[in-house]
């Protein structure tokens, strides 16, 4: 059983140069595995500065890792031949946060659909192109007669976002990376769009990487989750374990900060977490101990000396925190591999 998409200990440093010798460590030794045989939805969750979008760009081959490598079907993106690279670009598609930015306001929305078909020469006649577009729109839950021939401003935000889903589908992808696909969408449409994403997995067998700051929707759609904090994985595992019974102090803080739409459940209620301020990105040189230590109510002496390894607390979960040092350690790659196949 090979992995479809894999990140092996990838790190990415930004901004090194003449003036800034150290740079910012946006992603710090992250391993991630998406399996080939069974479609899944994997959530990557974190706040701003957690490195989730940088990780997405690494996985898409849009930027190169400073250390480590990204593999598609077992081959490193950097050592791929042209044909392999084209296959990767076709089979790994992305949906981004702001559908508005993906449109040219003076062109009809048809253009965003015909462009990729033309680029990859997937259709050979106008009829074929049209048929393919209509199919994709229907798969994304849209009626072609209500969308084709319109300008972006004539469609709702939800329709525009679903056209982005349709565009990703045009190329018969194996994996779709969705970076905050519903954060700009109204509540009533959010459910509809998330449903169409889950259908892609269920009905078309496409695996998704769902990148979000919103743990509630992550819980709704995904099976596995990686919680990122300042570029590192704080906790990873099955979404049931991680969100319903968070272990890492940071995950606990995140979960308790979710404002639940229920006035009887108190915000942050029952949480011993104090809410010290400020997130931020790590500088390469201050990454000696645990990155959460300055905010952590349970910080111990050892937390300041070396970054905690991952401790496997359950079969389907590992936590990077010394509170769990009685459990066996596990490498990120091993853990990712193991729960992706579970």
């Amino acid at each position: 059983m090979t992995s479809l998409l894999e990140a092996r200990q990838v790190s990415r440093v930004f901004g090194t140069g003449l003036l800034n010798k150290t740079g910012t460590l946006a992603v710090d030794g992250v391993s991630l595995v998406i399996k080939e045989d069974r479609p899944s939805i994997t959530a990557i969750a974190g706040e701003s500065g957690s490195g989730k979008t940088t990780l997405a760009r690494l996985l898409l081959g849009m930027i190169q890792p400073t250390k480590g490598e990204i593999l598609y079907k077992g081959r490193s993106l950097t050592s791929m031949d042209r044909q392999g690279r084209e296959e990767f670009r076709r089979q790994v598609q992305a949906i981004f946060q702001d559908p508005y930015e993906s449109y040219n306001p003076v062109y009809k929305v048809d253009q965003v659909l015909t462009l990729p078909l033309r680029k990859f020469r997937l259709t050979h006649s106008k009829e074929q192109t049209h048929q393919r577009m209509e199919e994709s729109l229907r798969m994304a839950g849209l009626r072609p007669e209500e969308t084709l021939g319109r300008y972006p401003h004539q469609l709702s935000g939800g329709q525009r976002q679903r056209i982005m889903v349709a565009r990703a589908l045009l190329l018969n992808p194996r994996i779709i990376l969705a970076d905050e696909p519903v954060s700009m969408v109204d509540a009533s449409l959010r459910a509809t769009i998330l449903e169409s994403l889950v259908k892609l997995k269920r009905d078309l067998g496409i695996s998704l990487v769902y990148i979000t700051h919103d743990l509630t929707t992550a819980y709704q759609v995904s099976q596995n989750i990686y919680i990122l904090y300042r570029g590192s994985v704080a906790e990873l595992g099955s979404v049931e374990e991680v969100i319903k019974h968070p272990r890492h102090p940071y995950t606990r803080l995140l979960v308790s900060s979710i404002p639940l739409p229920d006035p009887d459940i108190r915000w942050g209620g029952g949480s011993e977490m104090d809410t010290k301020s400020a997130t931020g990105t790590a500088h390469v040189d201050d990454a000696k101990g645990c990155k959460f230590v300055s905010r952590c109510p349970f910080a111990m002496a050892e937390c300041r000396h070396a970054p905690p390894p991952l401790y496997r607390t359950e079969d389907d979960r590992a936590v990077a925190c010394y509170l769990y040092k009685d459990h066996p350690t596990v490498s990120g790659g091993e853990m990712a591999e193991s729960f992706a196949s579970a």
Partner: protein
Amino acid sequence: MASNPAPNSTEPVLVVRDLSVTYRTPAGPVRAVNGVSFSLRPGERLGLVGESGSGKTTTALSLMRLLQTSAVIEGGQVLLGGVDLLQLSEEDMREARFAEIALIPQGAMNSLNPMMKVGEQLRDTIRAHRAGSNAKATADTDARIQRALESVELRATVVNSYPHELSGGMKQRVCIAMGILLNPKVIIADEPTSALDVVVQRQVMETLRKVQEALGAAVILVGHDMGLMAQFVDRIGVMYGGKLAEVGPVRGIIKDPLHPYAQLLIKSLPNLETKENFRGIPGLTPSLLNPPSGCMFHPRCPQAMPRCATDVPALVEIKTDRWVSCLLYEGSPS
């Protein structure tokens, strides 16, 4: 007709009556707010929720008379302590802003002037209202700024910082400090935390609640995050197509919504109980250029009756403190 969703116990601090606002657009007039009425008790937290285009932000900005020039307030009253803000001269309205009614705008942290130190911006807000620049006035101003910063849990030294030197949460706190500088009776907060991470969001909202309670000011929280509403407000007004569909206590609206739109909205919310349980609201938000006849929601309403396409429902109190604008409840005891 004279509907005022207000409890009877205390005299309301703010009464909005039949407010209507139209935007002039190249394609024709757009009625963004259409006969909205509600009132606010002293110290109360009221949420205005709705999808984009529901009129919640336009309503909020109308209360401050801070609409863009293409917008016209066509009618209605905004009574603050008995005075109709819509009738004030521009000069008197300028006096009332911040002193009587303050706004923490959408994306407030980006509304700070990047070229001015925080302290200067706060001082400007006070100076706009208090003449005189003698030593005593300056000392008063500085003391007031220090108190405001302290109440939003910022260090006094932030007065010497430029906005870019502060984090998002800190900038948001500066905006709250600005909002409370002159002890307003009403604070309008328009999606004050939409750009912040959840942890910081919770801290900022807790700060807002603390200063609001200390001040005894009422708050109108505008937004679309029902989770935030559930955790912050006392009452909710659900807006749809420029009108209030339902107004009531937060627990009532969330546990037992009455208006079909409110029912679908509550059902569509993701929770941590069930997975893959998606219930979006079918159909599209109404075009305000060419609004539907009758009830604004009838084209999407699963419970629509033939009359809903022709008759416009009024917002009526069908039981204590529960106001609904839906023909299904017509004839319910009021």
